[in-house]
C-alpha cells in the first residue's frame, strides 16, 4: 500500500497569496511594455517543454530560433538555401555518411565553448531515446533522427555522422528541427535529463532567463552570440494570453509589441487601427485532404480525380484568407530550393472534366462522408462547407460529418471517406513532406487509409536514397504524375501564420516558417531606424 505523500500539497513560496498581491500593491498600476529595448509578445500558449527533442509544436518552434542553432542553417529569406551554421563546412562522404567541420569560438549560454562533444551528446541515444515529458523523446525524434547509426568525434572540431541507410537528405536532417545543438556541459549542471529539458542550454542569439509553464517564457540578449545578426531586443517575454480578442486589446493598448495566432478574420481590424498592422502569411505547411481508398466508392481513382478537379482553390484563398496565402504547385514548396519543380502548375480546376469523369465512372450519387472537426485548423468547418458545395456542383453527394476529436475522425469504419490533414515540410524536400505523409511509413498508409502502389514504392526508394539531384528531380516529378492520376488526397493551400504588430514601436519581418526571427534581421525598432 502506498503511504500518503503530502509533498505535492505544500504550496511553493513563489505561488503564495502574498507573492501575487504584494508586488501588485506595490506597483503603480499601469506597467505597459514601453521599455525601449524590451519586446513583449502575446502567445496563445507556451511550450510544455523547451527541449526540441521533447516537444514538436508550433509554440515550441517559435522560441527555438532564438535559443538554439543547428549545424547547417536554412536561409528562409533566400529560398531555403543551406548556409553554414554551427558547422562551417560539410562533406557528404558517402550516401550514408556526412562529415561536419565545426565553427571555432562559439560559446554556449552557460559559458561553455562549443565542440564536437556537444554534437555527439545532442544526437546520442542518451538524449534522443529517453523517458520524460508526455511521451519521451523517442516518440518525438524517431521520425527525424531515428536513422542515425553512430556519431564519431574525429577531432575536437570535426564530427562524422553515419546513417543506417543511404539518406538523400542527410545534410537537411542536421539543418532542421529537431537537430538544434545543446550543450553537453549544461546537462552536468542540471539535476537530471528531465530537469535539463526545462532550461536547455544552446548557442542562440538569446538565452533563457525564466520559464513558467502555462504562463510565460523570458529571454535575454546573449552578448557572446557568434552570428552576424544579433538579438534585436535586450529582453523578450512571451506571455500566454489565450483569448484572441484579449491579445488584440493588448496590442492596441500598447501592452504588447507583437501578438501571435491572429485569425484571417481579425486582420482588417488590426490594419485599421492607427498604431497596429498585421504581418505574416503562408508557412511551410500545406493544408490538404486525405481520401480513404479502401472502400467501394473511393477505390475508383477517377472519382478521386474528379473530386480534385472540382475544387476551386483560389476561391478558398480569396474568400477565407483575403488572398493572403497561396495555392501550392502540387505537393511542393518553393523553399525546396533545387528540388522545387517550378514548371509544375497549381492543381487544375476543371468542373466540366470532373463531371464527365464521374459519368464515365458510373457514379450514381452514392453518399461520400467527409469527416471534419470544427476548428482544429483555421477556418476548418468553413473550408469543409465550401468544398461540399463545390463537389455538389459537379454532382457528388458529399455529407459533412462533424467530429470532436482526432480519434473520432480516424475511427476505421466503412464511412471514413474524406478527412482533413496538414503537411508540414519538416525538411525543405519532398522527403520531409510528400513522401513522409503519403509514403509507406506515414501514419495513413500504416492505418490502412490507402495502399502505396509498387511503382510508387520503387520511385520513393530512389527519392529517399539517391544522392543524384537530377535523378531525384525526375523521380519526384514522376511520382507527382502518378499521384495526380490516382490521388490519395488533395493539396488545398498553404497554411498561414499571422501576427499583429505595434507599428509605433517596431517593424516585424517574419520568415515563411514557424520559427520566429527576433534578431536584427526580423525585428527593427522604429526609433533606431
Amino acid at each position, binding site marked *: 500500500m502506498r503511504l500518503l505523500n503530502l509533498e505535492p500539497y505544500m504550496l511553493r513560496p513563489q505561488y503564495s*497569496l502574498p507573492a501575487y498581491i504584494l508586488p501588485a500593491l506595490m506597483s503603480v498600476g*499601469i506597467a505597459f511594455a514601453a521599455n525601449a529595448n524590451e519586446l513583449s509578445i502575446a502567445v496563445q500558449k507556451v511550450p510544455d517543454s523547451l527541449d526540441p527533442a521533447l516537444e514538436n509544436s508550433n509554440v515550441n518552434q517559435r522560441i527555438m530560433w532564438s535559443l538554439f542553432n543547428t549545424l547547417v542553417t536554412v536561409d528562409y529569406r533566400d529560398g531555403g538555401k543551406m548556409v553554414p551554421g554551427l558547422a562551417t563546412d560539410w562533406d557528404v562522404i558517402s550516401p550514408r555518411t556526412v562529415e561536419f567541420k565545426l565553427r571555432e569560438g562559439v560559446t554556449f549560454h552557460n559559458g561553455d565553448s562549443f565542440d564536437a562533444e556537444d554534437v555527439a551528446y545532442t544526437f546520442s541515444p542518451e538524449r534522443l531515446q529517453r523517458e520524460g515529458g508526455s*511521451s519521451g523523446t523517442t516518440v518525438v525524434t524517431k521520425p527525424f533522427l531515428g536513422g542515425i547509426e553512430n556519431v564519431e568525434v574525429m577531432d575536437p572540431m570535426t564530427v562524422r555522422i553515419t546513417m543506417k541507410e543511404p539518406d538523400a537528405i542527410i545534410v537537411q536532417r542536421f539543418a532542421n528541427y529537431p537537430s538544434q545543438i545543446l550543450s553537453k556541459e549544461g546537462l552536468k549542471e542540471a539535476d537530471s535529463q528531465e530537469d535539463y529539458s526545462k532550461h536547455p542550454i544552446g548557442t542562440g542569439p538569446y538565452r533563457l532567463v525564466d520559464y513558467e509553464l502555462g504562463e510565460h517564457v523570458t529571454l535575454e540578449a546573449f552578448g557572446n552570440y557568434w552570428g552576424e545578426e544579433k538579438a534585436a531586443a535586450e529582453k523578450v517575454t512571451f506571455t500566454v494570453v489565450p483569448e484572441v480578442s484579449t491579445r488584440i486589446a493588448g496590442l492596441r493598448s500598447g501592452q504588447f509589441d507583437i501578438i501571435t495566432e491572429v485569425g484571417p478574420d481579425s486582420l482588417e481590424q488590426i490594419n485599421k487601427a492607427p498604431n497596429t498592422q498585421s504581418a505574416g502569411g503562408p508557412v511551410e505547411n500545406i493544408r490538404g485532404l486525405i481520401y480513404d481508398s479502401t472502400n467501394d466508392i473511393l477505390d475508383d481513382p477517377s472519382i478521386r480525380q474528379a473530386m480534385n478537379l472540382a475544387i476551386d482553390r483560389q476561391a478558398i484563398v480569396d474568400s477565407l484568407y483575403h488572398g493572403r496565402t497561396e495555392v501550392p504547385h502540387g505537393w511542393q514548396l518553393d523553399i525546396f530550393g533545387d528540388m522545387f519543380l517550378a514548371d509544375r502548375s497549381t492543381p487544375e480546376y476543371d468542373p466540366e472534366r470532373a463531371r464527365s469523369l464521374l459519368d464515365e465512372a458510373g457514379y450514381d450519387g452514392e453518399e461520400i462522408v467527409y469527416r471534419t472537426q470544427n476548428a482544429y485548423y483555421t477556418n476548418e468547418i468553413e473550408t469543409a462547407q465550401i468544398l461540399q458545395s463545390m463537389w455538389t456542383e459537379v454532382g457528388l453527394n458529399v455529407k459533412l460529418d462533424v467530429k470532436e*476529436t*482526432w480519434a473520432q475522425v480516424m475511427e476505421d469504419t466503412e464511412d471514413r471517406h474524406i478527412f482533413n490533414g496538414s503537411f508540414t515540410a519538416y525538411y525543405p524536400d519532398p522527403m520531409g513532406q510528400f513522401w513522409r505523409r503519403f509514403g509507406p511509413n506515414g501514419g495513413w498508409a*500504416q492505418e490502412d487509409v490507402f495502399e502505396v502502389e509498387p511503382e510508387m514504392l520503387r520511385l520513393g526508394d530512389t527519392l529517399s536514397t539517391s544522392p543524384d539531384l537530377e535523378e531525384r528531380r525526375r523521380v519526384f516529378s514522376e511520382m507527382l504524375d502518378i499521384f495526380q492520376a490516382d490521388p490519395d488526397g488533395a493539396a488545398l493551400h498553404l497554411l498561414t501564420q499571422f501576427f499583429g504588430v505595434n507599428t509605433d514601436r517596431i517593424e516585424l519581418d517574419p520568415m515563411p516558417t514557424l520559427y520566429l526571427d527576433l534578431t536584427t534581421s526580423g525585428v527593427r525598432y522604429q526609433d533606431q531606424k
Partner: protein
Amino acid sequence: MTRWIAARLGRAGFTLLLLISFTFFALMISADPALQILGPDAGPEAIAAFREKWNLDKPLWYRYLTYLNGVLHLDLGLSYRTGEPAIHMVLDRLPATLALMIPTAIVSLLIGVPAGIYAAYMHRTTADRVTMLLSVVGLAIPNFLVGILLMYFFSVRLGWLTPSGIVGWSSFIMPILTMATAEAGIFARFTRSAMIELLQHPMVETGMASGFSRWKVLFVHVLPNAALPLLTVAGLFMGSLIGGAVITENVFSWPGTGRLLVESVGARDFTVVQTTVLLIGSTMILANLAVDLSYLWIDPRLRDARQVARR
C-alpha cells in the same frame, strides 16, 4: 443531532464518490488522449508508446480502481503534459484565483445586499424597478462580453488599464468588476425577495405600531431573518470560489485554476482536469456542508426543533 450531522457527512462523502466516478468515466470515454496530445501527425508506434506509458492500454475498470485507490491516498496522479504531480499544478494556481474571488465576494456583497434592501424598502416604486432592471442586466450579460467591453473601454479607448495578466493592483479592477456585476445582481435579487416576504410578516406591523422607526424594524428585525436564504446563496458562491472564474480568467489571461482547467481540457491532460474538477467539487460540497451546519447555529428554531424531536 449527532445522527443528523453524520447523515450530512455521509451524503457529502457519497456525492464526492459520484463526482470522482463521473469525471473519470466522462473523461476516459470522451477521447483517446494519445491521438489528441501527440497530434494527427503521430505514427502508430508513438501512440502505442504513449498509451503504455500512461496505462491507457489497460482495461477501464483497472484504471478506475487504480485511480480510486490513488485518491484515497491523496495521490491524484501525474500530469500527462509535464510529469509533475497534478495537484501541484492546481495548487500553484489557486492563490491567484483566490486573490480574485475573495475581493469579488466582498464587492458583490457590498453592492448586492444594500441594493436588495433598498429595493425591498422601496418596493413597487420606480427606484425598485430600476434597481431590479440593473440587477437583471448585470446577471444576463455573459461575463466574457462584460470583460471585453470593459477592456475595450478602459484599455483600448482610454488606455488606463492593462488588459491582461497581473501587472499591478489595477489589474484586479476589470476582472473583479466583470464578475461582481453578475454576482451582485444575484445577491440583490435574493436579498430583495427575502426581505419583501418578511416585510409582510406581522412582526413588522407590530414593530411599527410599537413606535420603532422603519429603518430600525428593517435592520433589527427583518434583516437577521433574511440571513438564512442569503446564507444559502452565499454558500453556493463560496463553493464556486475555485471554479467560478473560468471564463473571466481566460478573458483576462489570469494565471488561476480556471485557466489551468481550460488549458488542460484543451491539452487533454486528464489528470489535471480530474484534479481541478475534484477540487472544485469538494469545495462546493464542503461549502454546502458548512451552510447546513451553520443553520444550526444561526437559526435557533432548527436547533430547538431537533431537540424537541429527540425528546
